[in-house]
Every structure is written in structure tokens, then in C-alpha cells.
């Protein structure tokens, strides 16, 4: 595909124009985060994982969001305490559509909000005593809880509370894992450090303190799904494919996951990672400590799904390899029908993506499968290794924006006029007001799943309904 057709805009010049608006100091800093992808590039040529500039309307969140909101929150048979003032837990309550099956309030707690609701006296005198009581009350009212995590909000680290001591004492007392997580929102520069801290807490407080279940019987086909949060059921439409090729998914991290699944993970033969950004840490740790290899895969869109199934199968015996081919063939007619139906309606449509985690690169080929083109992409909280993995997916000339500000994204989109913007809820209505079709690519716009073959059909349908809805045609008044 030729990129010269992508846009008539001089993208390099556009970047410079947009940067003009900044005061000099900030202009210099922001310039390092914006680039146009060059041919044969090894990475995207942007700086990443550094502090956001004050006052610019970054789209990023915080470490608490990365730990409670992303990594820990979906573990369904635990209760995650938003430890500190009431807001963090309130805003993140049921916000991410991490689907799970369970009796909420009885043996699962995913869509509930537990907080120690700090008051001024807790700030002044410390909150450890209150935390003791919070855990006691939780254990009494929710006797089937299989573990408790303490998700620290900003004040905890500032007032010097010793939540680790509380966790140790209470864990011994109630006979269940109690896991302190130092994910105060001011730590790091984005959600990303929260992911890392949450991974480390699993390492130190799950792997170090618990054992796999005694009656767990391993098979040579045991794998895990790491870094799938089951948004709209993503992990389920992925798991079904892995099971179909003959593998046994012994743990889901963390969508629809359980404490036992975390504990049994060291029994896996291989860890399969979908969201590399948020969970590579624990995979690397398990490789080092338990000698478990890990592999990244991509279940967005049929091209990547087939490639990933083959890569995964290649780690196993011929039976699995044959199964993979059979499964790919089994779904191919459905995939062909989906593409036949939607590609003519989407071909050549241009997309600008701005999200977090793995999606700024992982979803690219799903769009390509539908004949769509990516003209800009960027990450909220990527590190350099993400930008190294990105040129594999996108083409020369693609605009790359790291930790884009609302101002920049608005200007870029305005100038480049894509046919679809794929970003988050904070961006959605900005671009719709501008008359641009939009899909939320964090929550799948309340749709999904988008993973796997079953998810691809939904993805294709959703992109079509966004772009080809008649509402865009009546935007301009005839008077």
C-alpha cells in the first residue's frame, strides 16, 4: 500500500505547526515525542515513558489506575481495597468492563467498590489501624473471599503508613493472602509503573508466599493467558481458540481470573502474553525463576490470529500443530464471509489510533484485514520496547505521537481528517463533534469481544457501523 495516498497533508510540517503553540520550554520537550515514521526504522524515533508536561491535558492516568484498575481489579475472587480517600475507587468502579462469572458480593467482587474512605484524622494519625479494621470487616462480611489486596492511593505513601506490616499481620490472622500494593498515583509517570508495581506485588506476595494447589495435575499442554483483561469477554474468545487447538489454559491474568489461577501459574509450560506492556515483568520473572518461556501473541484480526496460533502451536507437538491448522481452516469461511461483507464498506478508510498498552500496534493488522489504513498511532504510556515493536505493524510516513496532549491530537486529526478515530472516552465526543466517526478502543465502546475469530466479526461490524452510520450525513444544516 502506498502511503502517499494516505494523506495529502505534509505531516512533518504539521507537527512543527502544532508545536508552535507551546511555550518554548514545553515545545522542546513535546517535540521529542512526535515523529513521522521513517523507512526501515528500528523504532518510532520518539521519546517515551517520561513525565507528562503540566497543564497540557495529558490523557494518561496514574499508577493506582494501572494496578487496581488494570492488573488487580479483575481478579474476581479477591477484594481489592482502594486504600485512601473515596474518589479513586469511585471513579474506577465498574469502569473497565472486565467480564467475569460469579455471584457478585458472595464469591466475586469485580463490580464493587471497597474503600477505607480516609478522613482528615486518618491523614493526621495514619490509617493503619483503620486498615486492620477494614480487613477484619471484609473477612467477616465476605467469608468466601480468597484474598485481599490493598491498593494504595496517593496519601498512603506520603503519610508513612506501614501497609506491609498490616498485610502480614492480617494475612496470618485470617489465613488468606493479604497483598499490599504501593501503587500511589504520584509514583512514576503514568499507569505503566502501576502495572509494574502490581506485577512485583504478585511476585513478592503471591509467588513467594503461596504454593500451587497440591492436587493440581500438570499436563504437557498447560499454558496461561497473561495480559488479557477480558474486556467485553476478550479472554474468553481467546481461550476458546487455545482450547480448540488442544492446549489447557490453566490461568487467566487477570480478566475473569482467580487467586488459585495466579498460584498455579508457575506450573505452566509456557506463558502466552497478549498485553506485553502491562505484564511482561511477571513473565520475565517466571522465565528466570521457574524457567517458563513466554511468548507474545496477537489475537486481533484473522491474519495475526492465524500467525499467532501457528507460533504457539510450534512450541508443542505435531498434534497441536495439526489442530492449529484445522482450527484456522475451520474459522476461515466465517472470516472470509466477514471480510466479504465489510471490506467493501471499509476499504481505503483511514484510521488514527491513540490508546494504551498493546493496542496502538496490535490492532493495526485487524484494520488492514478490512482494507483500512493507519495514518497515525501513539501510546499513552509506552516504553521504548513498545516503540521498537511498532514499525513491524505500521508503514513509513505514519504519524507517531507519544503521550499526546488533547491539543495535539485535536490539531492532528483536524488536519489529517481520518475516516475513523480510535481512542478513549475522553476523546470520543471531541471528535464526534467534529463530525468524525469514532470507536472507543479501551472499552470497545461497550461492545466486544474483539479478540479471537468470534471477536473479529464484532470488530468488523463495529467499524462499519461507526463509519457508515447515516448520522454523519445530516451534520450540516441545509440553512
Amino acid at each position: 500500500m502506498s502511503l502517499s495516498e494516505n494523506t495529502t497533508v505534509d505531516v512533518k510540517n504539521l507537527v512543527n505547526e502544532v508545536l508552535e503553540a507551546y511555550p518554548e520550554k514545553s515545545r522542546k520537550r513535546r517535540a521529542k515525542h512526535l515523529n513521522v515514521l521513517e523507512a526501515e526504522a528500528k523504532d518510532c524515533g520518539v521519546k517515551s515513558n517520561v513525565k507528562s508536561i503540566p497543564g497540557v491535558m495529558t490523557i494518561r492516568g496514574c499508577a493506582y489506575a494501572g494496578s487496581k484498575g488494570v492488573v488487580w481489579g479483575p481478579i474476581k475472587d479477591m477484594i481489592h481495597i482502594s486504600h485512601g480517600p473515596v474518589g479513586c475507587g469511585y471513579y474506577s468502579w465498574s469502569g473497565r468492563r472486565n467480564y467475569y462469572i460469579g455471584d457478585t458480593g458472595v464469591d466475586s467482587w469485580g463490580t464493587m467498590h471497597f474503600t477505607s474512605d480516609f478522613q482528615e484524622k486518618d491523614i493526621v494519625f495514619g490509617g493503619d489501624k483503620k486498615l486492620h479494621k477494614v480487613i477484619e470487616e471484609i473477612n467477616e462480611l465476605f467469608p468466601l473471599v480468597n484474598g485481599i489486596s490493598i491498593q494504595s492511593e496517593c496519601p498512603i505513601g506520603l503519610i508513612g503508613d506501614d501497609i506491609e506490616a498490616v498485610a502480614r499481620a492480617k494475612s496470618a490472622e485470617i489465613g488468606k493472602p493479604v497483598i499490599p500494593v504501593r501503587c500511589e498515583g504520584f509514583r512514576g509517570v503514568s499507569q505503566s509503573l502501576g502495572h509494574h508495581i502490581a506485577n512485583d506485588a504478585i511476585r513478592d506476595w503471591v509467588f513467594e508466599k503461596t504454593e500451587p494447589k497440591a492436587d493440581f495435575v500438570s499436563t504437557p499442554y498447560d499454558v496461561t493467558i497473561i495480559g488479557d483483561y477480558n474486556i467485553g469477554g476478550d479472554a474468553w474468545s481467546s481461550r476458546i481458540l487455545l482450547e480448540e487447538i488442544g492446549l489447557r489454559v490453566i490461568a487467566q491474568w487477570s480478566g475473569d481470573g482467580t487467586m488459585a489461577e495466579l498460584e498455579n501459574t508457575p506450573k505452566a509450560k509456557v506463558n502466552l502474553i497478549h498485553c506485553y506492556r502491562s505484564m511482561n515483568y511477571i513473565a520475565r520473572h517466571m522465565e528466570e525463576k521457574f524457567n517458563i518461556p513466554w511468548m507474545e501473541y496477537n489475537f486481533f484480526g484473522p491474519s495475526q490470529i492465524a500467525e499467532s496460533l501457528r507460533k504457539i502451536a510450534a512450541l508443542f507437538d505435531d498434534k497441536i500443530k495439526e489442530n492449529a491448522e484445522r482450527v484456522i481452516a475451520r474459522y476461515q469461511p466465517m472470516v472470509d464471509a466477514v471480510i466479504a461483507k465489510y471490506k467493501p464498506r471499509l476499504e481505503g478508510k483511514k484510521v488514527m489510533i491513540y490508546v494504551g498498552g498493546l493496542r496502538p500496534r496490535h490492532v493495526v493488522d485487524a484494520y488492514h484485514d478490512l482494507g483500512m489504513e493507519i495514518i497515525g498511532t501513539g501510546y499513552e504510556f509506552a516504553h521504548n520496547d513498545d516503540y521498537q515493536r511498532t514499525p513491524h505493524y505500521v508503514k513509513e510516513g505514519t504519524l507517531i505521537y507519544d503521550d499526546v496532549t488533547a491539543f495535539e491530537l485535536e490539531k492532528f486529526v483536524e488536519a489529517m481528517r481520518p475516516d475513523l478515530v480510535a481512542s478513549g472516552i475522553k476523546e470520543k465526543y471531541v471528535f464526534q463533534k467534529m463530525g468524525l466517526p469514532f470507536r472507543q478502543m479501551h472499552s470497545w465502546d461497550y461492545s466486544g469481544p474483539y479478540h479471537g475469530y468470534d471477536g473479529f466479526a464484532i470488530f468488523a461490524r463495529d467499524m462499519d457501523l461507526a463509519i457508515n452510520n447515516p448520522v454523519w450525513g445530516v451534520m450540516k444544516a441545509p440553512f
Partner: protein
Amino acid sequence: MTDKLSQSADKVLDHYTLFRQPEYAAMFEKKKTEFEYGHSDAEVARVSEWTKSEDYKAKNFAREAVVINPTKACQPIGAMFAAQGFEGTLPFVHGSQGCVAYYRTHLTRHFKEPNSAVSSSMTEDAAVFGGLNNMIDGLANAYALYKPKMIAVMTTCMAEVIGDDLQGFIANAKNKDSVPADFPVPYAHTPAFVGSHIVGYDNMIKGILSNFWGNSENFDTPKTEQINLIPGFDGFAVGNNRELKRIAGEFGVKLQILSDVSDNFDTPMDGEYRMYDGGTTIEETKQALHAKATLSMQEYNTTQTLQFCKEKGQETAKFNYPMGVTATDELLLKLADLSGKPVPASLKLERGRLVDAIADSHTHLHGKRFAVYGDPDFCLGMTRFLLELGAEPVHILSTSGSKKWEKQVQKVLDGSPFGKSGAAYGGKDLWHLRSLIFTDKVDYIIGNSYGKYLERDTKVPLIRLTYPIFDRHHHHRYPTWGYQGALNVLVRILDRIFEDIDANTNIVGETDYSFDLIR
């Protein structure tokens, strides 16, 4: 494995159908039995029943520390909402940046509108050295990029814990030319560990007014005929503020809303993105000092602000989210009293039509039992309206409710024979309400989207009438205040009642004798 796939291009199955297909059901069962190591179905069923019991309720109400599913957010989101009701105003939240992402998301999910606010993005170094540099750079960037007419500064709990001094920081930033010296940068300290979003609202309104009015007491400030009105934090602000302006127009009263988000949170789609739209102008805000009176639609949102207005020599009056006939009567009589103008005939006509509608429908409302939860003022307003309809408010609950509020609710309940089974629960949360509903059943729940979990568990139908409403669209565009607003509320309640009756009488040949065509 059959070869027939459930998913197809012809009929794309969504998550709510896809995962009910047999292949997924089998997968879930296998995951559960082989890998989850959960509790037995019998044990889960036993505990589930126990959570519905009086015994559980007693333990639940004995809680002193953990808060579960509260009906409150933290101060800064209220402050942000307040600031966004002023023309061209960019909220600047000083502290950790994740908070702002949360507030913007929350408000956007309710209003289905863009929501603009910036953060000073403080990180660990700022935690040690303070956030002065973040303020200096942040104000300069925000001013340059977003061209606001005013920047309203509030704080996250991080900045409050380390004790950043907003007044000093802003002065410092102005000295460094971050913004022009005469550029308005009002501020409010909004610690998340004090009060809730409604206190944050109060703090920010007071902060903005004192920026333009000055802090000192002046009981002799010259006065005009204007009446100010502060709506408070209100999920129905788009509909309600417009309704208030319409009512003022009918009256011929010069009514000045202080913090009017109705246009900012309801911009048109015409190809142009408006980062700011409408709102109380800076000039109007300045002039509002000279109003003869300031009314608050929500007492608990304006405790300090009304005191401040008094100190400027203004008459003040407070309401508690006035809904329904008599609460609207009181509001209109207050406007009549302050303006010296009679209540216009057009509004009297609207009143008559509302009463007529209630009379037409009263049989379906009389004696129906309700649980109501939300902010303190909403609960008071809703309770009054229910009593007026002959319905019985039974459980009235607000996590932000104080002892004083409980007494206030009790007084409202005591004023009607329909209030005798009612009780107020201040400082309690939706997990308490779950116990209350299981042990003392009601017919309907009035609340927000979070109540859908109560509806699922207790099978009591939910009516969404307060912020946040994430899972239903556009209700906030319709007023709940005034006689017209009361009519909307009445219809919403009635619709739910009728739908509920239909849903319970629709089994062919079994219950459908009551599936009445005419009601």
C-alpha cells in the same frame, strides 16, 4: 466440536448472546471446575442467602471502617463541575494527574460530552519538593494551548497532604509570567479526605466568587434587583438550568445562574468542536455581587458559599433539590417575594396541569414503597415529591448525609402519613441499602446507574434519577425541576411501574390475564 460456528457474518452475535452459546458454556464450566478452585455451589448458595438475612444486616450495619459502594465521590470532581459552569473556564487540578483523567471520564460517561480539564501532573519529585514548578509551567502551558478566559485551580489529595499553598503558588506563577497579572485564576483547596464532591462544589464556587468579589465582609454592598441562583452539583443540570431560565423568563425576573453548565455540557454536533460553550460570564460573575439575593437549589452544596453571600449583604435562601408541586411552589413564592412580582399565570397553568397529571395517575403510585439514595439534597427533594404522590419513601440513604440531614429527612417524613415507615440513613452506603431492601422490601429503588446491582440482586426495579447515569442516554437533557420537571419525573416513575407490571404479567396462558391494554 461441531463444525457449525455460532458466530457469523450474517448475524454477528454480541457478547450478550455469543457467550451463551453451548461451546462457551462448556468452556466456562471447565474453567470453573478445573482451575478456579472456588467454593462449592452449595456453600455459595448458603452464603448468598445469609447476605439477605437480618443477621447479616446487623453485622453489615456494625461496620465502622470499610465503605462499600458509596454514594459519594471526592471534592475535586465537584469543584471541576462548578468551574465548568463559568464561561471559557479551564479547570486546573493541582496534584497527581490520574485524578483528572478519572473526573473527566466520569463526567463524560454521564453527559456524553467532552470534558476539558488539565492537571499539574505532579510526581514523586514534586511530592518531595512541592509542586510550585508544576504550577508555574502548568499555568503557562494551559494558558498558551487552551486559551481560557479563566483558569480555576483546585487540588488533589496529594497536593493537600504535602501542603501546597495555592494562593502563594499562583502569585508566584503570575510573577513568572505564566499568565498575565490580571488574568483570573481563582482557586479552592479541595482535599479528597474531607466531605465529598458536594463540598468541593461549594469550595470552588466560593473560590470563584471571592476572586471577583473580594474576601472582606461588606454588608452595605449596593444592590440591584437581580437574583442569583446556584444550582449545585446536578446530573440533570442541562435540563434543569434551562428550565430555571425559562421560569425566570416567564416571571420577568432577572435571574443569574452562578455556574451554568447547561451549554458547556450539551454542545451541538455541527462539525465544530467547542472546548468551551456558554456558562456564567466573568462580567456576570462580577455583577452578581450586587444581586439582592442568592438562592441555592441545594443546601448541602453551598454551606460556605451562602454564608459568604450573606457577608456581602445579600439575602439568601436555600432549597433541597426542589422537586414536585409544593417544593416548586416554594421556589416560585420565594422568587415572587424577592422580585415583588406575582407568580405568572403561565406557571400557575403549568402547576394545574402537573396536578392534573398526578391525579390521573395516583392510583398507581398510592402506597408504593420506595428506596431513595443519592446526594443529601436530592434525597430530600425526592422524598418530598414521593410523599406528595401518596407513595411511601421507606429507605432514604446518602453516604454524604450527616446527622443534621437525617433529622431533616425525618422531619419531612413526619410531615406526612405516608412517611411513617420511612427512615434516613446518613453516612451509609449501597451495601447497607442492599441489606435494608432484603430485610424490608420496597417496590422501587430511585437512584443512579450504580443501583442496577441492587436491582439485579433484590429484583426491585430501579428508576435512574440522579448522577451518574451511565447506562441510559440523554435523560439529563430533560429537567426534573419546576412543574415541567416534576412531570418528567412523574412519567419516568410511572413508565417503570407500568413496565414492571407488564413484565410480571406476560406469560401466555398463565399470568397474562392481567396483561392489561388499558391502565
